[in-house]
């Protein structure tokens, strides 16, 4: 049938506009929910906005909360370009955080110029190892990456939990956490007394790097080709197993970076169970940001703002901080659902073709 209507992927700008509309819609829906529950939505949103952007400190707080999300968002987006669903960001993040902690503690005493890069690198390598492992299992043993990644999430996070409950537990500490890393080895604060560190610049740097990778390089092209149509990529000379393992390693490294920025930017040590699911929220961030690195910067900022504003919303308008999770859920619902429906329609169209 030559008349088949082809779904052309809308350009990135279009998809971002689409995301913005989805966000607006979810805020309106959240307002309705608040009204029904007897809260004052205008006041609540006002407080939230104030809490997220009202002062220099509020902005710093918003930005710092967005940092781990942008990295897990990058991690998901990069793998997704190759058609791989990396739901293992959480495990990669934990091992990355642990590795950077171990290295920073072990090299204690050496100059900062050596220790900080070494700790960052160690975190990326550890995360990359988990990602690469998933890629290897997918490419060589042909096991679905989602299952492997979810299982590895448990294994890795429980392993890190064991480590800080046992061998690496800080002496005399009540909670499960490692010793504190010396302050000189941590990221520099951009605004004193806030949690915003220079890790933000790393995030922006990686966004540029990823953008360039997919726009202009052969490796980026090969990854995209594998994601679009592996059957056509293979005869074109692209090594699919190698690409899969490579892209998953890179994805894992980015997720590992999320862990690194938390340890070396916020806590200064490894705390058991520190991540409130950054690895999973990163999926939403990436989807909402249309898998575009700059889009992801924006959406991670949005999620950071929701997070940062929720406290103020809670004590000014008396709305539970859980409302933020409702809003996040609605955003995901409004963004992901049309996408899924669109894919289903495209699939049906292919079947009835001919």
């Amino acid at each position, binding site marked *: *049938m*030559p*008349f*088949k*209507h*082809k779904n*052309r*992927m809308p350009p990135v700008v279009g998809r971002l506009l689409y995301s913005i509309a989805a966000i607006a819609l979810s805020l309106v829906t959240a307002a309705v929910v608040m009204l029904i529950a007897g809260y004052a939505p205008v006041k609540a949103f006002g407080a939230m906005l104030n809490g997220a952007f009202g002062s220099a400190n509020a902005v710093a707080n918003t930005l710092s909360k967005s940092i781990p999300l942008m990295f897990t968002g990058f991690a998901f987006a990069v793998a997704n370009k190759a058609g791989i669903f990396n739901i293992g960001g959480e495990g990669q993040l934990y091992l990355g955080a642990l590795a950077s902690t171990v290295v920073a503690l072990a090299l204690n005493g050496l100059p900062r110029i050596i220790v900080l890069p070494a700790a960052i690198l160690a975190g990326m390598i550890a995360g990359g190892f988990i990602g690469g492992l998933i890629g290897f299992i997918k490419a060589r043993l042909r096991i679905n990456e989602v299952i492997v990644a979810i299982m590895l999430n448990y294994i890795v996070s429980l392993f890190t939990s064991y480590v800080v409950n046992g061998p690496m537990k800080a002496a005399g500490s009540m909670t499960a956490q490692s010793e504190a890393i010396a302050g000189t080895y941590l990221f520099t604060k951009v605004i004193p007394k806030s949690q915003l560190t220079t890790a933000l610049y790393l995030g922006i740097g990686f966004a540029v790097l990823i953008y360039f990778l997919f726009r*202009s*390089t*052969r*490796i980026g*092209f*090969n990854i*995209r*080709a594998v994601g*679009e*149509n592996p*059957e*056509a*990529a*293979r*005869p*074109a*000379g*692209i*090594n699919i197993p190698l690409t899969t393992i490579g892209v998953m390693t890179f994805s894992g490294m980015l997720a590992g970076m999320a862990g690194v920025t938390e340890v070396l930017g916020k806590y200064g040590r490894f705390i058991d169970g520190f991540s409130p699911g950054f690895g999973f929220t990163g999926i939403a961030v990436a989807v909402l940001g249309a898998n575009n690195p700059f889009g992801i910067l924006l959406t991670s900022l949005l999620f950071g703002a929701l997070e940062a504003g929720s406290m103020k919303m809670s004590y000014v308008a008396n709305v539970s901080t859980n409302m933020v999770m409702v809003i996040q859920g609605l955003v995901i619902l409004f963004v992901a659902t049309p996408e899924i429906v669109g894919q289903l329609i495209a699939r049906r169209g292919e079947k009835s073709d*001919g």
Partner: protein
Amino acid sequence: MRGITKRFGGMTANDRIDFQVEKGEIHCLLGENGAGKSTLMKVLFGLYRPEEGNVEINGQPIGQMSPRLAYQLGIGMVHQHFMLVNNLTCLENIILGNEPGSAGVIDKKAARRLVQELSEQYRFDLDLDAPIRELSVGMKQRVEILKTLYRGAQIIILDEPTAVLTPIEAEQLLAILRGMRTQGKTIIFITHKLKETLDVADRITILRGGKSVALLGAAQASPEELARLMVGRDIAFEIEKPPRGQGDVVLRVEDVRLLPNAQATVTFDVHAGEIFGIAGVEGNGQQQLEEIIMGIGRSRTGKLLYRNADLMEVPPRARRDLHFAYIPSDRLKQALLSGFSLEDNYLLGNQYDAQYVRRGIVQKRYLKTCTQRMMREFDVRAVDSLQSAGSLSGGNQQKFVLAREVGKDPPFVLACQPVRGLDIGAIRYIHSVLLRLRGEGAAILLISAELTDIFQLSDTVGVLYKGEMMDIRKAEDFDTQTISLLMAGKKGEEPHAVQA
């Protein structure tokens, strides 16, 4: 059918078409791909609802047609893709959805009697107890036809029925259709093949670009006239194929096992300046051969020699470095990234070429220039080089693939079903490009299920059946009859030549 108009988006697939079929005739609906034949028939069968126009059966206007109503009115349709349940028997498939009997109990005896009668009446020669999966394509098609008859169809629509058949099976089908006509059935036969149209039709309606351009009796039609009406301009039938001398062996397939249960292995040579045609019904090892040559699949035995170097264990990338050109049998699935721009698609397979990618960085401006130049040279019609590959028409997609693949003097070309689904104009263009490459000394392996393709282009022909090479000869030493027999696995009515 009067004034039928059907639009898809901005595309008018049927534009005020009048179509009239008389009882007891075989009426061919002739047209190129995309002329609107299938659409028109789907409107008749109630699968599509037209924007304008109406359908009348036996003078009765029908308000809203649906497949169910169509069956009640005695219209049956045999689609290109069979809708059969593989692990049920013929009989079970035929009665499926219309089982005789009462209270949920199937009266198998009555069913068998009914179906048997029909089968004999029309000389279908079917084993009713054979499971569908064991039947050949031709037999499956008969089951589909019998199914429509069982449901009481008086008017039977066949959508490109011969596309999947061997020449012999096609002959047999035409004979069955003639038999059905003498029994008073009305047959609408959708096709783009001229020969069978003239063979079997009483009257012919020709569609072009969604319009009905002619209605004529088969008796006064000539192939030249039909082709002119179909395409809208004159078409030369014969293409020029200059003689050539035998070149060196470029590719040698040696002792390769194509199918796991094949009794013999396959060996042949493709020479420089030669088109080696592989004839055969699809599914007889062509796909495996294609994959082995491109390094996607492997054979446990044998060698794949390119100028004496064995490529069997070498990954696909090496073929790209040797500038192999590859036109896969399924262009959308194996050659194109349908959501990507034409420029990105042009890069696919060229990304290890230093001209296009330097130090890992894609040379965008150069890529754009090359893409646009090739599109002009090969007459690929698109809005611009940033259009997505999936939005091109089939003919333009194929020209694009051809442009990309043969652009840099390939020493070897693997062309699989290169003209499948294309219209006459595009077919001729692709033939001419292959012949040009042959003239330039490329070794070309052509795998095609279309005998016309094979005969028009090939210097040497091999016939593939169940993973085995039945025979290899010079093209002029084959005739349609022998080749058809070989394609059906029948060997040895005459002494056969050894390898050419």
